[in-house]
Structures are given as structure tokens and as C-alpha cells.
């Protein structure tokens, strides 16, 4: 890797040094720049949408083009703006806040980042094929299946998302491992700044929320490419299964964006009120509760699909419940402002606007939790207004607050406050004009995703106002870009701590050196920099926090467990689809009873399970430095894995020669999908074991360096556990 990597050094001008960088600060900046670029792309898409809708019966863009625009606008803003920008801030700020030198896995970090431009290229490459995806960012089946979307746009959408998903999960695993393993001495987990705690929760949420999307898009891709029919009702599939899987991802995804916004304002509001956050434990705890509850509310996107009364009532209750941990935060932020001495910086203005606009979005959210109201308002512009108040009025405003708050730390220079305030007012007016009026359009009955409309009374006026507001937001964005460019060149020099901030990132230079800190202040509370600046008012004198007991788990193991949990969810959903499609009696063609040889596969199951045993013995040998035994038992593990794969090849070829292929019926589709993905995981595991074997031969693995091998073990045993579930459900039919 390239050496002097400090942001201030000469290498800054060298593009190659950026591409090769594994420094968390540079990677963080690259994430942010990518997000800014796609914010402009997604913004232009939004402007075209608003231009088309500015007047009734407009024909600026064709219907196909309009549908592509809103599909790409949603996909871009979610996957190429929302995800990367917060990962960028997390990357840059979290290690600084916990006094670490870098993230836990710097090279993995670089890989995670580079997956994004790769995925983005795949997504946007669809334009050159003449068919950008146009089934909506939610790609509802069966519209997204081959009979109704025969052009390759949806395929690009799927593969682009899969690639970006890999980057998101590995990036999130990195943050989890960083927070757990890399905190400076003195910083117990209860002393991390709220930004760190909430971004930790957000990273955990990414790890568990992307897998349902991966399950869904894998199945859709198998439908489209291999002729299965998971989501084609005409051939026995289920249109609703897609919605369940998609929103199991899609709703937690909302909190993947909301949590960072909470994290940001939980730093900005206290600093500019000159007070600590009110109720740290409640803000932190309520974020954890949101992570837990976010998985129980997905079907509130589906109140109009006819789920029946029971599910409707359950999901209404869960949705109302999740409003509480958000409400707790609103009150705590208000209590933090209360009695504070307020500095109305641009960052603070954006944070305050966030607070109020987020309340509006939250309250309309409660209206949608009121199921019968949802039956009327869903899929109208009322819902467009609702979620843009959350995503733009809330989250984008918090992002601007973060930009103004941390830009000095990132660049070493201050952003211009005058331009900042101009941008603030342009956005405040533009945002509320564009989306506020859409509440009315919803009540007028204007549906979402229509490329034009009749000249009904009031529609032209409201849409005109909405489109005019968009121009203000665009102007505000240009002011920001100008402000950034100007300030990079000639902004006031920031110094270490321009805002009188509380947390560790303000204890180092702006921008920080490559190794982040020359020396760390003593960490005895949640605000070490405040303590250092105000010795007589130091937090630890008045507010006791749990001492750091110095426990830091091994990064590799944390990463392995996070990965395994993520993969477990992926397999659980594939198995759910197996059970859903194979529980009825009316399946035509082969079933598990008629097509599978249980005793033969049972034998290979024992082979695979015994490989876990041999692995365990190999690990014991390594601990005791018996390298010979280690190589023997590891070699045996690899052999057993290969035998299992051989058995699977035998089984597959038998099935295929009997005409049982993935497109035969839903049993065959689910069978090949589940066992195929498992087989791929075993194969991947064998490759990793092979690498371990080589490292052992070369002498890299010793009793003092067992962490990585233990982490591989977590994965290998996991693959076996998955097979036990697969064997019980598919071969032994335990759910029948």
C-alpha cells in the first residue's frame, strides 16, 4: 500500500494514491464524493420528474422514460446516496470518535467501497442497452418478471443491487468490528459518543436487513434467467412473497437512513446548545429498540393487498409502537435545547429544521399506521409527501447539518456561513413548497407514479407549486457545491476544534494525520474533549459512567459472527420460500418424496457433519502448535467437503437426467435454489480452507495466530448447521 497517506500531504494530488488508499478517512471521503455525485444524478432525475408533472397533459418525457426516471430516482437515492453517504460519515468519524487509528479491516473497507461504483456502473449501464429498469425501485412482481418486463433493465437492476449489497454488508461488518474492537483505552461501550452508538446500531441493522433483499433478488434473477416461477402467479408462484421479502428489507432500510440522522443531530444539537445530550441512555436505548422493532413492521407497506384483519391489526400495533422510541428522541433533543445557550450556526439551523420536519413526517406516518386511513391514502401523493418529509426534510437536512459540522474536520477549512444560510433558506422554502403541497394533492386523489394527469380543479396549481419548489432545492444544492469548492480553496482555517465540540475527533488536527492522533486525552466520560477544556466542570465529576474493563474481542471473530448472522437470514428466507411453495398437496410433477434419495444424501450429510469434527480437531492442534496434526486434520476437512460437493454433483446430474431442472416446477426451483446456494457456500468454504492450509504450510499460522482460523471455523460450522436445516426441511419434510 502507498505510504504517506495523510490528507494534507502532497500525495493528495495523486489520483492513484486515492484509488489505492486503505485509510478510513480517504475511503470515507470517497464514499461521500460518490454520494454527492449520485445526489446530483438522482436530483436531475427528480427535476425531470417534476418538470414533466409541472403542467397537466405534459409530454416532455415519454411514459416509458418517466417510469425509468422514478425507478432510477428511488434506486439511486436509496443505494447510491443514502447508503454511501452515511457509510462515508461513519467511516470518517467513528474511528476518530473512539480514538482508533483506523477501522478494524482497512483493506476490506476499500473493497466495500469499490463495490459501489462497480454496482452503480452496472445499474446505469442499462441505459446503454436501451432499457433502464422501469418496474419501480420496489420492482413488484409479477410486473418485474420476464413476461411483463422482457427487456434486460430489471436484470441490471438486480445485479447492480447485489453487488452494492455485498459492499454494504461488508462495510457494515467493518463498522461493527471497529466499534467493538478498536476503542481507545478508557472508552467503555457505554461511553462512546451517541453518533458512534447509533451508527453501531445502524451497521448491525444493515447486516440483518440486506439479506432479505438478496434472497428476493436471487429468486427473481432465477425466475428471469433460468425460467423458474417463484413470482409468476400464472405458473404457481406468489406475487405477495416478493412484497413480503422486499419490505422485510425495505422497511428496516428506512431506519438504516433514519438512525444516522438521529446520530448526527445527537451530536450537533448538544454542541450548539453547549450542553450534554439529555438522557443519553434513553437516546441510545431507543435506537437499539428501533433496530429490534424495525423487523416487525414490514407489512404496513401492504395494508392494501388484502392480508386479512389479523395481520392488519398486528402490523398497525407494531407500527404505532415503533413511533415511541422515535418520540423519546424528539423529547430528549428538545430537552437538550431547553436551557441551553444556542448558537444558530448553519449546522444547527439544519438540525432544528430536521427536528420539526421529521416530526411532520412522523405524524403523517402515524396516519398511515391507522390502517383504514392507509387504505385511502396509500399510493397517493400523500404518501409521497410523508416519506419525503422523513427522507428529505428529516434525513437530507440532517446530512447538511453533518456537512457543515464536520467539513472543518475533514478538510481543515470552514464552510462559509453566509452561503450556508442562503442554502438553508433555499432548501427550507423549496422543500416545504415541493412536498408540503403534495399532502393536498394526495387528498385530491392524485396517485403516485403517473406520468401525467387531467386538468382537474386545483391539480395544475398544486403541481406547479411543487415543481417550482424543486427549483429552489436545486439552487440550494448548487450553492452548497459552490461553497465546498470555494471553502476548499480559501475558507477560514478551522483549527482543531472550531465548534468547541465535545468528542475525540476534535482533539486532533483538522484534517487529522494518517494515524489520526498524536496523543489522546484521558477518557473518563462521554465528553473527553469537554472535560479537557473545562477541567472544573468535567463530566466525570458529576455524571458517573461505567469504567472500561478493557475487554476487546478479536476483530476476525466479530466479523465472522456478523457475516454468519447475515447469511443465516438469507438462508432462512430461502427455506421459508421452500416451505411456502411445498406445503400444499397440489404440486404437479416431482416432489421431495418422489425425486430425492434421502438415504444417499443422508450419508453425504454425515460426511459434511464429520468435517466439522475434523475442523475442530485441526483447530485444537493449531492451538497446541502441532502443525503436522493441524495439516492432517485440515486436509481431511477439505477432503470431506469435496466429497460432499461430489455427492451433490451426483445428485444433481441424476435429477437433471430425469428432466428435473430448476424451471420444472416450484419444488425443483426451490430445491435447486436452496441446495445450490448452500453448495456455493461449501465451495467458498473449501477455497478458504485451502488458503488456510497453504498458510499453515508456509508457517503463518501458529498457536499465537489462531484468530483468523477460528473465524473461518465459525463460517465452516455455520455451513454445516445450515445443511442440517436444509436436510430436515427438504429431505425429511419436517414441516409437512
Amino acid at each position, binding site marked *: 500500500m502507498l505510504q504517506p497517506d495523510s490528507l494534507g500531504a502532497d500525495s493528495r494530488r495523486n489520483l492513484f494514491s486515492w484509488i489505492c488508499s486503505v485509510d478510513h478517512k480517504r475511503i470515507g471521503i470517497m464514499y461521500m464524493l460518490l454520494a454527492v455525485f449520485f445526489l446530483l444524478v438522482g436530483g436531475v432525475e427528480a427535476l425531470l420528474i417534476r418538470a414533466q408533472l409541472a403542467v397537466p397533459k405534459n409530454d416532455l418525457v415519454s411514459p416509458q422514460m418517466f417510469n425509468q426516471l422514478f425507478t432510477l430516482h428511488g434506486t439511486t437515492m436509496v443505494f447510491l446516496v443514502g447508503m454511501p453517504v452515511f457509510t462515508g460519515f461513519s467511516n470518517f468519524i467513528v474511528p476518530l470518535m473512539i480514538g482508533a487509528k483506523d477501522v478494524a479491516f482497512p483493506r476490506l473497507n476499500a473493497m466495500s467501497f469499490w463495490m459501489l461504483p462497480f454496482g452503480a456502473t452496472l445499474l446505469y449501464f442499462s441505459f446503454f442497452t436501451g432499457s433502464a429498469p422501469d418496474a419501480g425501485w420496489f420492482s413488484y412482481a409479477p410486473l418485474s418478471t420476464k413476461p411483463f418486463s422482457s427487456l434486460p433493465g430489471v436484470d441490471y437492476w438486480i445485479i447492480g443491487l447485489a453487488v452494492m449489497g455485498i459492499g454494504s454488508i461488508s462495510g457494515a461488518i467493518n463498522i461493527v468490528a471497529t466499534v467493538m474492537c478498536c476503542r481507545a483505552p478508557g472508552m467503555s461501550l457505554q461511553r462512546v459518543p451517541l453518533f458512534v452508538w447509533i451508527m453501531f446500531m445502524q451497521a448491525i441493522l444493515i447486516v440483518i436487513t440486506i439479506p432479505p433483499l438478496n434472497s428476493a433478488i436471487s429468486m427473481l434473477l432465477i425466475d428471469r434467467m433460468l425460467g423458474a416461477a417463484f413470482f409468476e402467479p400464472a405458473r404457481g408462484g406468489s406475487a405477495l412473497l416478493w412484497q413480503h421479502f422486499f419490505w422485510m428489507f425495505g422497511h428496516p432500510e428506512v431506519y438504516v437512513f433514519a438512525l444516522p440522522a438521529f446520530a448526527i443531530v445527537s451530536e450537533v444539537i448538544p454542541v450548539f*446548545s453547549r450542553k450534554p445530550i439529555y438522557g443519553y441512555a434513553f437516546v441510545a436505548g431507543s435506537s437499539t429498540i428501533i433496530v429490534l422493532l424495525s423487523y416487525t413492521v414490514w407489512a404496513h407497506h401492504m395494508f392494501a393487498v388484502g392480508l386479512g384483519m389479523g395481520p392488519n391489526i398486528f402490523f398497525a400495533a407494531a407500527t404505532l409502537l415503533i413511533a415511541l422510541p422515535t418520540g423519546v428522541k424528539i*423529547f430528549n433533543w428538545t430537552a437538550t435545547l431547553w436551557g441551553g445557550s444556542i448558537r444558530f450556526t448553519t449546522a444547527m439551523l439544519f438540525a432544528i429544521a430536521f427536528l420539526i420536519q421529521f416530526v411532520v413526517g412522523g405524524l403523517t406516518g402515524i396516519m398511515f399506521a391507522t390502517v383504514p386511513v392507509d387504505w*385511502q391514502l396509500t399510493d397517493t401523493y400523500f404518501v409521497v409527501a410523508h416519506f419525503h418529509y422523513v427522507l428529505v426534510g428529516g434525513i437530507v437536512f440532517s446530512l447538511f447539518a453533518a456537512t457543515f459540522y464536520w467539513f472543518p474536520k475533514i478538510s481543515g477549512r470552514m464552510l462559509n456561513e453566509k452561503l450556508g444560510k442562503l442554502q438553508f433558506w433555499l432548501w427550507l422554502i423549496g422543500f416545504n413548497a415541493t412536498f408540503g403541497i403534495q399532502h393536498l394533492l394526495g387528498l385530491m386523489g392524485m396517485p403516485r407514479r403517473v406520468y401525467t394527469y387531467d386538468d382537474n380543479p386545483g391539480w395544475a396549481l398544486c403541481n406547479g407549486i411543487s415543481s417550482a419548489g424543486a427549483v429552489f432545492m436545486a439552487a440550494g444544492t448548487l450553492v452548497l457545491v459552490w461553497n465546498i469548492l470555494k471553502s476548499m480553496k480559501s475558507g477560514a482555517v478551522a483549527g482543531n476544534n472550531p465548534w468547541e465540540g465535545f468528542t475525540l475527533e476534535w482533539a486532533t488536527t483538522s484534517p487529522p494525520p494518517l494515524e489520526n492522533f498524536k496523543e489522546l486525552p484521558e477518557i473518563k466520560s462521554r465528553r473527553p474533549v469537554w472535560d479537557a477544556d473545562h477541567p472544573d466542570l468535567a463530566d466525570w465529576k458529576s455524571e458517573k459512567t461505567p469504567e472500561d474493563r478493557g475487554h476487546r474481542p478479536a476483530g476476525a471473530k466479530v466479523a465472522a459472527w456478523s457475516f454468519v448472522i447475515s447469511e443465516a437470514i438469507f438462508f432462512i428466507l430461502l427455506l421459508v420460500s421452500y416451505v411456502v411453495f411445498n406445503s400444499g398437496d397440489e404440486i404437479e410433477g416431482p416432489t421431495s418424496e418422489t425425486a430425492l434419495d434421502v438415504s444417499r444424501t443422508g450419508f453425504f450429510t454425515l460426511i459434511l457433519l464429520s468435517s466439522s469434527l475434523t475442523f475442530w480437531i485441526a483447530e485444537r492442534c493449531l492451538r497446541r502448535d502441532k502443525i503436522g496434526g493441524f495439516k492432517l486434520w485440515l486436509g481431511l476437512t477439505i477432503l470431506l467437503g469435496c466429497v460432499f460437493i461430489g455427492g451433490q454433483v451426483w445428485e444433481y446430474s441424476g435429477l437433471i437426467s430425469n428432466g428435473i431442472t430448476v424451471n420444472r416446477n416450484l419444488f425443483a426451483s426451490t430445491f435447486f435454489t436452496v441446495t445450490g446456494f448452500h453448495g456455493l457456500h461449501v465451495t467458498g468454504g473449501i477455497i478458504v480452507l485451502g488458503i488456510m492450509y497453504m498458510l499453515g504450510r508456509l508457517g503463518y499460522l501458529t498457536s499465537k495466530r489462531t484468530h483468523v482460523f477460528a473465524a473461518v471455523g465459525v463460517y465452516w460450522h455455520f455451513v454445516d448447521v445450515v445443511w442440517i436445516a436444509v436436510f430436515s426441511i427438504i429431505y425429511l419434510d419436517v414441516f409437512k
Partner: protein
Amino acid sequence: MSTFPLLQPASPEAEAIFELFITVVLISLGIFVVVTGLIVIALWRGKAKADTPKQEFGSSKSEIFWMTGPILILVWIFVITTKLILTTNAVPKIQPTDSTHELELHVTGHQWWWEIQYGDSSIVGANEIHLPTGKRIRVKIESADVIHSFWIPQLARKMDAIPGHPNYIWLEATKEGVYEGRCAEYCGTQHTWMKFKVFVTSPEEYEKWKQEATAADKTTAQQVAKTAPDGKDASSSGAKLSTKEAGKAIFLSEGCINCHALEGLSTPSIGPSLTRISDRAIIGAGVLKNSQENLGRWLKDPQTYKPGCKMPDFNLTDEQVKQLVTFLWSP
């Protein structure tokens, strides 16, 4: 048509939802005023301060205190929500047999139009529903292709039309009038123009309409059969035919017959039925008002008015269009 259909309900169900909505809006306004008020007061009090304020870390007591209100409000909202789910939307899977319920409606979403079948007659319509006042009608909602959503804001809740998953709702109108309905779920290129109209009349007028329409169906069938040419090879002798007969020849030869039903001639439902088309209010599921001129425009170039719709441009001459319109208008 009303400017704010969601605020002008015309059925007991829409009325109940409207009342619930207003309740929740008022609660929300209350919360908004309180929260924003507190924020503004805090900002106002803190704006001129320059000194270091008292460093407060919070107290569990105040947290519990201020969360009591929101918890009670959410319980309240949950109760009124559940009550409405249970009372107005008991899932109508079984058709009741008493006289107030005898009419059943069967609605099928297609890309991009609505097929309407009536349980009490053989009438098949497209993009138009005729209803009597004061009857609670069970609607079976299905889809022939992708997911659509059946929505008449002033009369009933939205309900998705999902292939392989029939849904049911109650539909009831208290006031006579014409109501707008439309597809509310994105369903592809022409989701925009997938509207329909609901004509609510008194039960007597509805009966009258039903009888007239049934009679018209019969007449159409007879007329169509009478109109030469009656064989498939008739287009060859087109020169001697009257305008209407030439229209029928085009209907047969250009392929209209493959997608559209016409009483006495064809039955497919890929496109809407063309029987009694002169009675319809709209063309192309809302893209044009119906008239002979507009029907001609549509036949001449459907892709201009509804780009991406399933009906291709047949490159008909003006003469052919006139003949086809004449035939369809009164077969």
C-alpha cells in the same frame, strides 16, 4: 367531480374512514403544536445566552413523565383503528343471501383497463360501473396480469388486484352521481391511464339501465349477425359493402376480433369489450372522452394518445376509420 374526493365521502365506509382521518389529523396537529412550541420556546430562551449553561444529563423521572402522553395517545389511536378495521371491513369472503346484497360485482384489472362483470346479469363492461344506491355490493377483485389496485376514493377503500389472490371488498353508495375510480398501484407503462367511472343511480334507474343494456346486448348480437359480410372471406368483396358492412369487414380482417369482445361476434378479453361502446363515457381508460370523433382519433393512432398501450397502430386510412367507427357505434 369533487376537488377533494377523500374529504367528500359518499358511502358509509368512506365516511367512517374520513372521520377516523380527521380525528388522527387533529391529534397530530395537537402534538405538532406542542412539540414545535416547546422547541421554539427553548430556542427563544437560549438565543441570547453566551455563558455556559447548567450541564444537565437527564432524569428517568422526566422521561417517564413525558412519554405517558404519547403512549396514551397511541393506545387511543390503536383502539379506534382496530374498531374500524373490525366493524367496516369484515372480510366479505362469502356472499350474503339477503335482498340488500343480491348484486355482486366482479372486477378484473388488465394492463391497462378494467373489466367489469355483474353478478345479476350477463352484462360485461369496461372502465364503467353502474350501481344502485342503498345496496351493499360485494366486489370480487382479480387481476389478469400484474398487480393493480381498485380505488374509488369517495366510495370505498383501496384494494389491490393481485393475480392468483382474489380480494373482496364491500361497495356501497348513498348518493346518486358519477364517481371517479382508478388503478392506484403502479402496473407498468400506462398505469396513468387506468381510470374508470362509477355511475350511481336510484335502484329503479339501475334496473332500467340493466334491462336496456341487456336488451342492447341482444340487439347488438342480432345486428352483427345480420350485417354482411358474415363470412371471413368477405373483405375481398369490400367494394360493394355499405359503410357499416365495410367496418365489420375491417373488424374481422385487421385483427380487432383477436383482442376485443363484441356481442355476437367475438369473446376475448385482452382488450375491453366493444359492445355498446356508444354508451361509454371514456376511451382508453380515461385518456379521451368518448365521442365518434374521438373514437376515430383513437382508432387512427392509439399509440399517440396512450403510448405503450397494448393496442398497436393499424395504419388505417381515414376512410377505414370512418367505416369502423360507424360499425362499432351501432353495429
